[in-house]
């Protein structure tokens, strides 16, 4: 569908992507451009911010009473009412301890791209605090011809890929995530066999249902810049299961 472009001298694909006008193959093609053309990615971001001005004008509607309680309950753990009165310092201490433990686990993994890592030790002994939220696993199928399954466990930050999309000889496969900001963020390099990456902080937070995982073909060591430099060889959207 290129013949119906009334004015091919003006490229409005970034605006189309930012507004959400595209679907199917056209959307996939635009997302590939985001990955491969930094200027295009910047343009999409610019449009996204322009369009966001309209949020100020969006009519407000009060949600039903009690919905916050349902949401709060589904986060698990102590309710904020109790938490505010008593055990915050304790929770904070426990959380800090858990964070420290996780840091050790992460630090002990020399290279997150070394496949296949054994499952991480499950902390036992102390009664585990209730999870802070029910976190469904996320899955994606990368590529179409020989899709590579990817599974992400938000609770542990482990992202596993059964294999890796093929790249040219002497090149490496680099994994990216593209979320609501329409900007590719590097997650790591993939080895030939199965891959297990442990994601933390901002990287882990970017993996949500609806975000896209993408693999690009890069020189050894990965892309020399913050966006992909080689062709994108596979993409797949994350879905909650």
């Amino acid at each position, binding site marked *: 569908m290129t013949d119906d472009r009334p004015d091919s001298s003006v490229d409005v694909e970034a605006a189309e992507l930012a507004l959400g006008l595209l679907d199917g193959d056209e959307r996939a093609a635009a997302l590939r451009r985001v990955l491969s053309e930094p200027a295009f990615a910047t343009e999409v971001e610019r449009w996204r911010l322009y369009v966001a001005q*309209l949020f100020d*004008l969006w009519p407000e509607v009060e949600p039903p009473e009690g*919905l*916050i309680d349902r949401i709060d309950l589904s986060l698990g753990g102590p309710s*904020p009412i109790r938490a505010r009165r008593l055990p915050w310092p304790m929770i904070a201490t426990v959380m800090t301890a858990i964070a420290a433990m996780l840091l050790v686990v992460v630090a002990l993994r020399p290279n997150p791209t070394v496949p296949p890592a054994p499952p991480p030790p499950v902390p036992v002994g102390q009664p585990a605090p209730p999870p802070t939220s029910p976190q469904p696993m996320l899955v994606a199928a990368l590529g179409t011809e020989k899709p590579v399954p990817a599974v992400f466990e938000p609770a542990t930050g482990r992202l596993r890929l059964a294999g890796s999309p093929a790249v040219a000889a002497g090149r490496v496969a680099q994994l990216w995530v593209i979320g609501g900001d329409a900007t590719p963020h590097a997650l790591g390099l993939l080895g030939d066999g199965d891959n297990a990456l442990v994601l933390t*902080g901002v990287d882990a937070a970017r993996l949500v249902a609806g975000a896209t995982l993408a693999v690009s073909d890069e020189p050894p060591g990965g892309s020399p810049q913050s966006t992909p430099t080689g062709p994108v060889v596979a993409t797949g959207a994350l879905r909650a299961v």
Partner: protein
Amino acid sequence: MTAPRLSPDAARTRLAETLVKVGSEDRAAFRDLYDLTSAKLFGICLRICGQREAAEDVLHEVYLIVWRRAGAWEPGRASPITWLATIARNRAIDWRRSAGGRPTTTLDDAPDLPDLTPDAEAGLVAAGERHRLVDCLAELDDRQRDSIRTAFFDGVTYADIAARAAVPVGTAKSWIRRGLARLKDCLDR
């Protein structure tokens, strides 16, 4: 909402501070964030989902995402409400597309959409802040402006817009693309 109205700048600062606290897993701040933002986000979910029950479920999911991702919000990049509203709009669109249904075109209890003329904007805009996009939209012809408005507020694609207007997709694309090109021209000025 009986809280006294804050100035837009103060409201934004308060929202940013609340979001940062949510990022450090502060459950009380999470409830505050809900009080400050749920009417806007529910308005978004309701408009796009077209059904109350679905909109409530999507809003629920949106706040779970916010709880998990608040730590990744970077102050100074997107404004907090833009960040939150974008999550809500994207989730609502995802829901509607996965539900496979065409968007409901009429919604009994959803308020009317703003008409996107500079006049309508006057009362809403934060002091000293220009809504360039609204100014530029005003330069388009009605059909182009309406299509772009529908795309944003209803979260619909070219195919949906064409179906609603009962025209071939190519036709809808062609007038919207012309509108976007004019918009781009205006915004670049």
